[in-house]
C-alpha cells in the first residue's frame, strides 16, 4: 500500500536541492542550428569520410605523375582529354584535368556513399530513433543531412582541386594560362577561374545529394542505399552515352556535368553551366520533396 500512497504525492516531495525547472523550453535559433553544425561535425569525423577525401586527393597526384612520365618519354601526345596536353605547359591545368576525370566517376561515387548512407545508416544503427525523440524534427533532420551533403560536395571537389594545384605546381611550370578559346589570361585570373570551376563542379553534384537522400529514406540498410545510389550514377551515365536516347538525355542529371569547361573560354560561355545548375535545382526540388514526403510519413521501427 505504501507504494500506492507514494504515487499519490505527485513528486512535490523529494529532494530539497535545487532541481532545474521542468517544463516547456523555448526553441532558439542557436538550438535550431546546433543540429546542422553537429551533422557537419559528425560527417567529417567519420573515418569513412576522411578515407574518401584522401582517395580524391590522391587521384590528381596519380594523374600528374602519369602525365609527367608520358611527356618525359618518347611518345608525346596521345588521344587524352584536351586538358592533358595543356597540363604539361601549365600546372594549373591539372586542376581542370583532375576535375574532368573525377567528375564522371570518383566524385559521384563518394557523394553517393555519403548521401546514400545519411538516413539509412542511422536507421540501421538505431540512432535515428533517438534523434527523432530528441526531437530533431524530421524536416529539420533531413535539411541538416542535405546541408552536410552539399558541404561534403564542396569538400570533395576542393580535395581534388587543391591536390591537383599542389601537384601541378610541383611537377609543371605555372604561369599564364592559354584558354580553350586561345586567349591568354594571367595566373591570378586563372586561379579565380579554377575556384569558379570547382564551385560549379560541387554544385553539379547537388542533384545527386538529393537523389541519394531519397534512396536513403527508402531503406533501413546503409549499404543498400549507398550501392543503389552509386549504381544509379553509373547507369545514368551509360544511358547518357546512347544517341538513341536523345529525347531524355538532356534531363539526365549527369548530362551537363562537363560543361564547366565552357568557363575556360574568353568570354565565358555560361549556357551549358546554367542548364546544368537549373537541372540540378530541379532534381533537388523533385527528389528533395520525395525524400521529405517519404521520411515524414515513414514508420521508424528499427
Amino acid at each position, binding site marked *: 500500500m505504501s507504494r500506492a500512497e507514494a504515487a499519490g504525492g505527485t513528486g512535490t516531495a523529494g529532494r530539497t536541492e535545487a532541481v532545474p525547472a521542468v517544463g516547456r523550453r523555448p*526553441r532558439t535559433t542557436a*538550438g535550431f542550428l546546433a543540429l546542422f*553544425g*553537429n551533422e557537419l561535425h559528425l560527417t567529417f569525423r567519420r573515418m569513412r569520410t576522411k578515407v574518401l577525401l584522401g582517395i580524391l586527393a590522391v587521384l590528381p597526384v596519380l594523374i600528374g605523375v602519369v602525365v609527367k612520365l608520358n611527356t618525359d618519354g618518347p611518345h608525346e601526345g596521345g588521344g587524352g582529354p584536351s586538358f592533358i596536353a595543356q597540363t604539361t605547359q601549365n600546372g594549373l591545368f591539372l586542376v581542370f584535368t583532375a576535375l574532368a576525370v573525377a567528375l564522371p566517376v570518383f566524385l559521384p561515387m563518394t557523394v553517393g556513399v555519403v548521401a546514400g548512407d545519411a538516413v539509412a545508416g542511422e536507421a540501421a544503427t*538505431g*540512432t535515428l530513433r*533517438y534523434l527523432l525523440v530528441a*526531437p530533431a*524534427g524530421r524536416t529539420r533532420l533531413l535539411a541538416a543531412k542535405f546541408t552536410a551533403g552539399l558541404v561534403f560536395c564542396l569538400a570533395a571537389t576542393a580535395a581534388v582541386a587543391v591536390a591537383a594545384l599542389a601537384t601541378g605546381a610541383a611537377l609543371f611550370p605555372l604561369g599564364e594560362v592559354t584558354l580553350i578559346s586561345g586567349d591568354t589570361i594571367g595566373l591570378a585570373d586563372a586561379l579565380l577561374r579554377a575556384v569558379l570551376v570547382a564551385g560549379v563542379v560541387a554544385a553539379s553534384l547537388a542533384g545527386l545529394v538529393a537523389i541519394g537522400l531519397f534512396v536513403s529514406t527508402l531503406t533501413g540498410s546503409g549499404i543498400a542505399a549507398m550501392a543503389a545510389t552509386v549504381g544509379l550514377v553509373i547507369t545514368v551515365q551509360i544511358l547518357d552515352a546512347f544517341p538513341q536516347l536523345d529525347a531524355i538525355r538532356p534531363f539526365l542529371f549527369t548530362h551537363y556535368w562537363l560543361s564547366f569547361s565552357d568557363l575556360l573560354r574568353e568570354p565565358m560561355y555560361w549556357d551549358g553551366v546554367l542548364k546544368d545548375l537549373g537541372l540540378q535545382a530541379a532534381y533537388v526540388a523533385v527528389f528533395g520533396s520525395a525524400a521529405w514526403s517519404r521520411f515524414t510519413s515513414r514508420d*521508424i521501427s528499427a
Partner: protein
Amino acid sequence: MTKAPVTGDVTESAGGPGAEPRPAPAPLPPASPTATAFLGSDDVIRTRGLTKRFRGGQLAVDGLDLAVPRGSVFGFLGPNGSGKTTTIRMLMGLIAPTSGVATVLGEPMPQSVATVLPRVGALIEGPALYGFLSGRDNLIRFDAADPTADPRTRPQRVDTALERVGLSAAARKKARAYSLGMKQRLGLASALLQPRELLVLDEPTNGLDPQGMREIRALIREVAAEGTTVFLSSHLLDEIEQVCTHAAVMSRGRLVVQGTVAELAARAQGRLVVRTPDVARAVEVLAAHRVTALVPGEDRVDGEFGERDDEALPELCAALVAAGVRVHGFGLERGTLEDAFVALTGEGFDVAG
C-alpha cells in the same frame, strides 16, 4: 474514460482459449477518478483504442486503453512480443497508429512531437550509439538534436548526465568500446540530459549486472522523487514490484489489467505454506480441512486456503500438530505480481506468437 472499460478488459482480453481468469475480487479504482473527457485528464499518457497492425498483418497492439497518472512510476509489463515496444514507439511518434488515439502530456501524438518530446526522455528498445564517437560526443549529438536545448549549457548538462549514470570516467572512450551495460547507461544519460516531465524507459536494466540494476533502480526512484513520471517497460516482475507504484499488463497486444501494484498483487490470493518433513501426512490433514490446490514439495506443502475467519488458521495448525505432523513453519504467503500475472492471463510468461 472511467475504470469500467479497463475492468472489462480483465475478463475480455484474457479470455483467449483456456485462459479464463478467476473473476476479479473487486473492480480496481479508476486510475483518474475525475477524468471524464479524454483530453482533459491529468494523465501523463492516455490512449484510447490504440492499435497497430504492421504491414504483413501482424497485429502488435490491439485496442489499447492506457492511463498513466502523473507522478507514478508505471510498470508496463508483458512477455516478449506482447507489444510493449510497439506501444512506446507510437507514444513517441516514431510509428503511426493504425487506429486509435494517444496523448502524451496532454497533447495528441504523433502530431505534437515538437512540443511534447523535449519534455520527455526516452530509452527505446536498448541504446543506439555512434561507435566512432566518444560517449560524451554521443550525448552532445543527441542534445544538439533537441532544438529547445541551450547550446551554452550543453557541456555542463552532458557532464551532469554522465555523472548521474556513473560514466564520467569512461566519457572520453569511444562508444564502440563500451560494454552492453555501459551503453545502456549512456542511453539513460541521454534521457536525462534535461529535467523531464516524463521518462519512458523500455527495459532499462537489460544487460546490466546486479549492481548496475540496483543503481539504475535507485536512479529511477530518484528521478521519480523529483516529480518525473516514469513509464517503465519490463518483463521482470520483481523489477516492477520493486520500483513501480502502478502497473499494466500486456498480453498478445492487449491490455489485460492496469492499476496500482499493491492492488494487482492483492488480486493474487495468498497461499498457505506448511514446512514439515511429514509431507504426506500434512497433505491428508490439509485436504481434510478443505485446503485446495495442494502442492507437496520437499519438506513443504502449499495450497489455497481461501477466505475464512480469523480462527480458522490457528485451528488448522492445531489439527496438524494433533495429527502428529512436525510443523517447522506455518503461515500465509502474500501473493506476488507473478501470481497475479498468471492468474490474469491464465498463462505462463511465454512468448506469444
